[in-house]
């Protein structure tokens, strides 16, 4: 039996045991085991279709047909009291394009019970202060996704679930967002961040590699490299897939 809590008694941010999710009568996540320790940046890496988004939706409690044991911040996923403690950013920017940036944030702030100064803070964190009065429909794709990220940062969520937050961003901005994630972790938050870009692995405290709805491997990048003898995350991923297929064929 693996431990449910950290040494100091904090429950893991996410703990999944035998989680299965069916979509359209087909299991897209099947028998998934996973631990996201508290106060870490955990990267959820895997190709498109590996079940990352479905897993994240299950964690934030909007995915139907989830079975198995899925605990979030020590509570069953989807518990109403978790909704105040989560920040979720969907893969496509879920923002109102016919509102300004500030209007979007003020609505989310009203629901999260966050104040106006919090709106200013998150705008600054995603570097959109200069765009506050602009309609979202006039923003670029990358800017829209930053508005979406800013909405997830409102309040002080204990767990941030971010679905591909850096996709399509220029490298400078990507670096500044990963710096922001590290600062949030240092402030005591837990982060589950998905990406299909393997080179973002080095910015995560811990990695979860997913393929075909299951966890291929989890651990620090260093551990995975030692285990596979690879030199980077992509190499480790390929080595693990090959090993799994060899085991399956045998």
């Amino acid at each position, binding site marked *: 039996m693996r431990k449910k809590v950290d040494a100091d008694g904090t429950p893991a941010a996410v703990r999944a045991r035998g989680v299965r999710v069916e979509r*359209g009568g087909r299991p897209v996540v099947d028998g998934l085991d996973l631990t996201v320790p508290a106060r870490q940046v955990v990267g959820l890496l895997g190709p498109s279709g590996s079940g990352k988004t479905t897993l994240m939706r299950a964690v934030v409690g909007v995915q139907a047909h989830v079975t198995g044991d899925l605990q979030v911040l020590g509570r069953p996923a989807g518990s109403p009291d978790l*909704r105040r403690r989560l920040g979720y950013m969907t893969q496509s920017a879920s923002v109102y394009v*016919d509102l300004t940036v500030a209007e979007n944030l003020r609505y989310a702030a009203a629901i999260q019970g966050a104040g106006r100064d919090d709106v200013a803070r998150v705008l600054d964190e995603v570097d959109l202060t200069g765009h506050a009065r602009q309609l979202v429909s006039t923003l670029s794709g990358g800017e829209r996704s930053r508005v979406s990220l800013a909405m997830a940062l409102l309040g002080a969520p204990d767990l941030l679930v971010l679905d591909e937050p850096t996709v399509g961003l220029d490298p400078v901005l990507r670096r500044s967002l990963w710096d922001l994630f590290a600062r949030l972790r240092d402030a005591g938050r837990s982060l589950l961040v998905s990406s299909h870009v393997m080179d973002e692995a080095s910015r995560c405290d811990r990695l979860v590699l997913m393929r075909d709805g299951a966890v291929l491997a989890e651990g620090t990048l260093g551990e995975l490299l030692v285990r596979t003898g690879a030199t980077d995350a992509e190499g480790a991923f390929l080595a693990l897939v090959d090993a799994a297929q060899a085991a399956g064929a045998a």
Partner: protein
Amino acid sequence: MSAAWMLATTQRVLAQLRHDHRTVALVLLLPCLLLGLVAWMFDGTDVLDRFGPVLVGFFPLLVMFLVTSVATLRERTTGTLERLMTMPIGKADVVLGYALAFAVLATGQALVVVGFATWVCGMDVAGPVGLMVVVAVLNAVLGSALGLAGSALARTEFQAVQLMPAVILPQVVTCGLLMPRDQMPEVLEWVSRGLPLTYAVDAMQHIAAGSGWADVRGAVGAMALFVVGALALGVATLRRRTP
């Protein structure tokens, strides 16, 4: 449920409308155009006096149903509803917030179309004009509520636009406008009693004929019940978890 969350939603929907001048213009002016055409066509007869109030009641139901079902479908497809459902806001706050925002828009629509009908087209309402506005607003809220509930059935835009004829047109056929209800086949007359537009048309016809509150309160009460029922259906069909 929380009044703050509901009002935040209302404010947000109204802000969206504020940025969409064309939609607001269409909502406010289109009924006037259509009513103007009727007035012009039947100039010199009492058709406008008899049927004008019914049209004034019908527009908000139709328009608000369409606008709400498209708006809600947009929330579902763009992921904004999914994000809302991860937040503390209640389902009822979302539905009632929407209904309230569209009630505000509908009140504007009703006032403009009633003003246009009476002052520009010379519609002569025998009953109280204020009551006519109230019925029109109730119709609008009903339209929003049905739109919210109906959009749960629609997965695509194609389906959403076809919900309007599916939900509204059968009511137009049986509401007593095409044929007095007491002349209908008995089964259809019973069906008409279960549909909200029947009561809206009944109330408006009474107001047009000069009846006051005492004569229409039954119909208005029935409409209010339909509004409550449709809102409850809208809340019930909203799902936090989706496949």
